[in-house]
């Protein structure tokens, strides 16, 4: 049995345990009394607050029951927010308004008497695990480094903490230099063109990346080790050699989902995984605030997977990384907290609970199969609203679609969130629509009161529970199917995930064009207006040539040193050493394309699959 089978079993075992505990709570007076006491204590910890219209509200809603079975069901089955199995939330407070006045409640007198008022600004002691920063994290990248830098500055105006999330252009995603034959037209399209450490320096110019509330994310996969090495080198140039440990952020680097869905693979699978694990192993001690992998379902879902498939493939990929790292001798409690996750949120009903179910399965699997401690059990979630749900016809409707998806994402208490722009079908977001997308998040979390006052609005609702059970079962079924195929990697070699995703993607399009899936403006309530003409963010040929000129100058400047640096890299790669440790040096004098070519020469090329 692969680890997947064991994980599926461990979830079933845990569910049986919960059922048994619920029964015991109803039978065993002593246990029931313990539970009631605990429940009272938890209630006592809940502060009261007031809505702007004066309605008093608890800062946390717990099921209103005193029945021991129901208490056990909630505490063990769902979990107090911030507690195992984390279905409710990864942390206690999430989006609650940090600045509103709260009142402490006297124990055992629910919501009645209060003892003293206290403003909540920056109070970190009571719930230390609480995320104190806003979840908004907008993905941006276009043109050359300075263009993206300008976009970062524009978006930053609406953010409290420093949040920079980078999209790279096609050549960079495929590890090619901007002067590679035949790619000039793609330079700066769909993301930013980065060839060298100098571009990387330009990209983040003016931002203090060592601020404690700064966080940089990079959507970069096959060349992730090279790009992160450039990021480190650029940061050192600006903030000195000691800044590395303070750098905070995420690099995607999830190669399994690349093979399965996003198709940015350069090296054979084993080499890709080796380079990734080298990087994680290096980051764990050297960059304690960095997430060196973001295990992503977004691309799997956007490529066509159903929500259940998305969750099953993503979680199983995550467990596979855990297994690989453990096999390399890295301690699960060291790397566990450094893994992060990234899910899609579309309009299908399963998205009401997807984040909750994933957190729960991850926590149980990590605890019971990987023996991880509490910190290493928490699935930290980034969510992006679905790009594929946004369509060209009557594209203003995309604002509504994204708003609904944002609501679903927050209902799952995602830790961070990207909202797509309404011009998504046409172009890398233009300023206007990127701003509207960011305002969408602010309207829901800041303007509306929905998430501000009370945590755990819906957890335990009958509809959610029914969905959670079905979705969880669906995920475990997929785990077991992959288990019979020999686990994630063997299944992947047999195209299992790809063929499932493709089948589902095809089925989706068929449903749309057979009018079985209503899409307003496309197959229902159609207005027959011609496709709109929207402003496009495109990179001019002049800029593309400028990027090539910069690269040429860089290569010329380092022509003497580059060959030796590449030779050192090659030696490390051939001898089985930690490639990332060497890349940090190589990037000082070599371009992305030079490094890719060097490593390809050592490990060969990936053989793509249909």
């Amino acid at each position, binding site marked *: 049995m692969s680890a997947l089978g064991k994980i599926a079993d461990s979830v079933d075992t845990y569910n049986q345990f919960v059922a048994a505990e619920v029964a015991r709570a109803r039978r065993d007076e002593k246990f029931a009394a313990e539970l009631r006491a605990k429940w009272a204590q938890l209630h006592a910890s809940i502060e009261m607050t007031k809505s702007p219209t004066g309605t008093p509200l608890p800062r946390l809603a717990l099921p209103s029951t005193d029945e021991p079975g129901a208490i056990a069901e909630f505490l063990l089955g769902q979990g107090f927010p911030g507690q195992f199995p984390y279905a409710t939330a990864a942390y206690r407070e999430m989006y609650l308004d940090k600045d509103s006045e709260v009142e402490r409640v006297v124990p055992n007198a629910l919501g009645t008497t209060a003892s003293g008022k206290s403003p909540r600004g920056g109070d970190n002691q009571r719930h230390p695990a609480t995320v104190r920063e806003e979840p908004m994290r907008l993905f941006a990248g276009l043109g050359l480094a300075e263009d993206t830098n300008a976009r970062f500055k524009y978006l930053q105006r609406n953010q409290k903490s420093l949040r920079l999330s980078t999209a790279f252009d096609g050549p960079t995603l495929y590890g090619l230099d901007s002067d590679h034959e*035949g790619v000039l037209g793609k330079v700066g399209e769909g993301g930013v063109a980065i060839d060298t450490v100098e571009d990387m320096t330009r990209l983040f110019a003016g931002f203090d990346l060592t601020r404690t509330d700064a966080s940089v994310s990079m959507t970069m996969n096959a060349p992730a080790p090279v790009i992160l090495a450039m990021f480190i080198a650029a940061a050192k140039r600006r903030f000195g050699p000691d800044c590395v440990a303070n750098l905070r952020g995420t690099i995607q680097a999830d190669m399994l989902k690349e093979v399965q869905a996003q198709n940015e693979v350069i090296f054979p699978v084993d080499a890709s995984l080796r380079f990734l694990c080298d990087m994680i192993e290096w980051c764990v001690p050297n960059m304690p605030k960095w997430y060196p992998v973001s295990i992503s379902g977004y691309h799997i879902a956007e490529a066509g997977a159903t929500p259940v498939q998305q969750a099953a493939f993503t979680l199983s990929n995550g467990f596979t990384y855990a297994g690989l790292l453990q096999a390399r001798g890295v301690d699960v409690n060291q790397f566990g907290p450094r893994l992060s996750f990234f899910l899609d949120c579309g309009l299908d009903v399963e998205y009401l609970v997807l984040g909750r179910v994933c957190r729960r399965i991850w926590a149980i699997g990590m605890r019971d199969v990987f023996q991880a401690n509490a910190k290493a059990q928490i699935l930290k979630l980034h969510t992006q609203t679905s790009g594929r749900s946004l369509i060209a016809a009557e594209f203003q409707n995309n604002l509504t679609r994204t708003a609904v998806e944002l609501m679903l994402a927050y209902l799952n208490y995602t830790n961070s969130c990207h909202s797509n722009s309404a011009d998504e079908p046409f172009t890398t977001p233009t300023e206007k629509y990127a701003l509207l997308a960011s305002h969408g998040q602010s309207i829901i979390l800041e303007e509306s009161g929905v998430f501000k006052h009370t945590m755990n609005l819906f957890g335990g609702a009958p509809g959610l529970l029914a969905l959670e059970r079905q979705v969880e079962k669906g995920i475990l079924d997929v785990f077991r199917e992959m288990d019979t195929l020999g686990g994630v990697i063997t299944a992947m070699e047999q195209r299992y995930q790809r063929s499932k995703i493709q089948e589902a993607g095809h089925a989706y399009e068929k449903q749309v064009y057979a009018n079985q899936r209503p899409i307003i403006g496309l197959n229902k309530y159609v207005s027959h207006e011609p496709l709109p003409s929207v402003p496009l963010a495109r990179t001019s040929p002049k800029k593309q040539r400028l990027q090539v000129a910069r690269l040429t100058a860089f290569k010329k400047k380092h022509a003497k040193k580059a060959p030796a640096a590449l030779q050192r890299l090659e030696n490390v790669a051939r001898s089985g050493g930690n490639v990332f440790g060497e890349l940090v040096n190589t990037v000082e004098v070599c371009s992305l394309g030079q490094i890719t070519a060097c490593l390809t020469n050592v490990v060969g090329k990936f053989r793509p699959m249909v």
Partner: protein
Amino acid sequence: MAAASTPRNAAPLRILTAVPVCDGHDSAVTTINIELARHGIEVIYLGYHQSAAAIVRAAIQEDVNVVGLSSYNGGHIVFFKEVCDQLRKSGNADIPVFGGGGGTITHADERVMQRQGTDRIYFAGTPLDAMMAQIKKDYARVAKPNRKFKGDRALARAISIVESAPARYSLPTTRYSNGAARRSYVVGVAGPGGAGKSTLIDELTSRFLRSNPTGRIALLANDPSHPDSGGAILGDRVSAIYAQDDRVFFRSLATRGSLTGLSAAAPAAIDILKQSGEFDLIFVESVGVGQESDPFRIFGKGPKLVDATLFVLAPYYGGLIQLQKIALLNGADLVALNKCDHPMAHTAKAEIQARLDQNGKDQVLHPTTAAKHYDPGVDTLYAAIARLGGLDLVRGGEKACFMEDPA
């Protein structure tokens, strides 16, 4: 099957589909491929992240009716133009180029692209059935001889002609050669589906290219047609990473109802390739076939279709009894046990060797792991083929193999 099917006598349309360089958005093209095949069209799928040069090479060698590109990562104006230009410059402007890219390609872009040679763009929201009907109407064509075609296109067209009427083929009178008449060694590759034939052929191709710096190799990949629609998705090119080279002539053949494991046109296609005098080595891959089949006619009285047969199997063949039943193991010149990274490989090796020893023909079993680059087992297998075919293992260029010639 609800899908409209092509009348049996008409040769199916052949379309090459691909996603441009630095672009991995393959979800749309995958759906389009399935729909095209469902509508009786033969789709030769090249894959994502494909250069203009690779697309043009494939379009020529496959002699397709049309090229369909699915582009999402921007730069489409430049890229479509590059494909059209390269087709025109190589004398293949008759192959139209069309495509789609959802909302990323605008109406204004289409107008520019049409001026630069692109035929048409399918915009976001185009219903699938309408698109298929239009494609079938626009790009139907009968493959006729064309004296203007040069080089690989002439060869490819000759194969298309026999494909549309295999029974009428007699040895060609024209030679397609550019003057360098070579003798071709033809190896037929058979074995169960999924054993790794295609992967192995690709790895062998890399050995050939390395050791023969001026030689050419041809690959004929046979794949099944859909029995109801008559269409097919011919995806072998996606994984053939070493076929991305002008010294490789790669042709995909759909079986179009033939049950022998080869297209009915395969014998003629082999003949055409040999007659061309272009190729030192030709690999013909059969469809994954049953235990009794004999795609290369090695047991009958008539002439064999190939000079040597390579039988490939994977460790999970289902035990000794199944092994006994595989007829080709009696006659194959070369036998490879692929997927030697599989846990059952050790037992399989012993069982197969024993099975071969029964034949008393000194057949050697080659253990290979084609999924691994630089696999020494593949080196040994290539050396054996080279010896049979009188091919150089080292000539001018690099050695074919990373290890020494085992002989």
